[in-house]
């Protein structure tokens, strides 16, 4: 378990003090995959690096399995770091060493025996499926392969904690998918705790159990990703999530709906529906349009599955007689999580 208690981190710079992390407290459970999201400069990397003591605290406490990181002597700190793996956005492989030598590096630092290192390196190469690249230099590898070397290297010392600072931000979407799947699989098979920093919400929804949202050094909210994604409590989180689901109805479509309905003398409304949980699977719309004398058109819709549970957002237009339209909307409102009117007949 990793716990943060009133953590503050400050940087002294020529232009004054930068307060990068402000009074952050939360815990990360053992064997979970924990995401930290937030805008650039929010303090995510800084917070992550307090876990292995790369950043010093101005005040507060970071504890890993009961050991208080900020009170370790420099020797204890080095031993602490040997037990924690770290992977990076730009991989940070040692260019003058082959794949096998890169993977062996942390084992050498931990002063493991030669024979042990050799068998362990082969094990790890197999784990990340890079046996054929054993003697290649990093310059000859693709981004995905480099990150797999990074992962193998980070796990070499049978580490139980893996810190990931934007591990997929330099990778294309297909490679991202493969790497995330590998991380997820490793966390389950090896029972490791993964802390993953990202600004890509897709990464979080793909593999995390829980998420913390940071903004300007502060922790704005934390919870299961389903809860945070589907019912964000803080304004900041809402905005962040809105950019993910955001869709603006094209002006031409809007104009057409307006014109057609005005010509036919019908009342209309365009609403945004948020589905959550089981409701997302049910034919809410087709049922409503059968029950009432209205026309319901889906303009745009997206349903996704977070931790296996559906969550969706849909933009629909409802047209018909005024009272029928209102009845339809009331019916819909009872079956979805939220409904918001975006445009209506004037």
């Amino acid at each position, binding site marked *: 378990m990793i716990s943060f208690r009133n953590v503050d981190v400050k940087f002294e710079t020529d232009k004054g003090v930068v307060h990068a992390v402000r009074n952050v407290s939360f815990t990360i459970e053992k064997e979970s995959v924990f995401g930290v999201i937030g805008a650039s400069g929010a303090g995510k990397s800084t917070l992550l690096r307090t876990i*292995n003591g*790369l950043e010093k605290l101005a005040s507060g406490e970071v504890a890993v399995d009961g050991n208080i990181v900020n009170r370790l002597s420099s020797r204890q700190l*080095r*031993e*602490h*770091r*040997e037990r*924690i793996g*770290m992977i*990076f956005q*730009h991989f*940070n*492989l*040692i*260019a*003058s*060493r082959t794949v096998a030598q890169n993977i062996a*590096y*942390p084992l*050498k*630092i*931990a002063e493991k025996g030669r024979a042990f290192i050799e068998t362990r390196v082969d094990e790890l190469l197999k784990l990340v499926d890079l046996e054929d690249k054993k003697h290649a*230099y*990093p*310059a000859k590898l693709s981004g995905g392969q480099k990150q797999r070397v990074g992962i193998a*290297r980070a796990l070499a010392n049978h580490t139980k904690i893996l*810190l990931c600072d934007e591990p997929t931000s330099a990778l294309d979407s297909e490679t991202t998918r493969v790497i995330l799947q590998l991380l997820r699989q490793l966390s389950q098979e090896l029972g490791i705790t993964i802390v993953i920093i990202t600004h890509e919400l897709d990464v979080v929804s793909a593999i995390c159990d829980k998420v913390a949202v940071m903004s300007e050094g502060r922790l704005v909210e934390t919870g299961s990703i389903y809860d945070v994604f589907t019912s964000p409590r803080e304004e900041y989180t809402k905005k962040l999530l809105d950019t993910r689901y955001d869709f603006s109805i094209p002006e031409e479509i809007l104009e057409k709906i307006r014109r057609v309905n005005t010509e036919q003398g019908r009342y209309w409304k365009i609403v945004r529906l948020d589905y959550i949980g089981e409701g997302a699977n049910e034919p809410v719309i087709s049922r409503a349009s059968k029950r009432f004398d209205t026309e319901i058109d889906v303009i745009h819709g997206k349903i996704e599955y977070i931790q296996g549970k559906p969550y969706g957002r849909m933009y629909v237009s409802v047209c018909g007689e005024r009272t029928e339209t209102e009845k339809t909307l009331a019916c819909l409102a009872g079956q979805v999580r939220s409904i918001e009117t975006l445009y209506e007949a004037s």
Partner: protein
Amino acid sequence: MSNRFSFVNALRGALLETAYMVSLSLVISIVLGTLLGYCLYATSNRYLMPNRYANSIIGFTVNMVRSMPFIILLVAVLPLSKVVAGTMVGPKAIILPLVISSTAFFSRLSESAFRGVNKGVVEYALSAGANNAQIFFTILLPEAGSTLISAVTVATIALLGSSAMAGTVGGGGVGHFAISYGYERFQTRILLVCIAVLAIIVQVIQFIGDLAARRADKS
């Protein structure tokens, strides 16, 4: 110097003296310069040995030495040679000023070679639990390897030049040879031979240095 045989012998002797001066001071100044370069790098790195004052003091001292033309440094340091090497003339006496000058030069070259090492890799090594000595030997030296080899090449050629200059104060070597025969005795042909020999030596050093640097570069 009419006798071709004695000329070749004298030139060979001068070359051996130069080789002695350059190689000995090169080895010493590479070791010292690399350590000093590491100090310059590490004292300005927030993870290694951050220390603004130490960094300024070392930097200032290095700059002082570097700002002195070698010929001035030479005459200023020669009295010290008497203490260290027991003599103020000959190749032995020249080694000390050569080492001082070349160390200062190489410390800046190696500092910049270390700065060229990907910072992320140093951070990775720290995250794996490496200590400062391990960072130096297992990350900085090998990762800067190719750049350091080029730096050695540059320093060797600079030393060759400085050692020739030392000939003017009785330092021996090719410089001394060229000046006492070619310049003071107006034997232009000897001067030309010296120039040709030095030119070939420099080309060879550069060639070997480039080859070795390319070999060391894995990127």
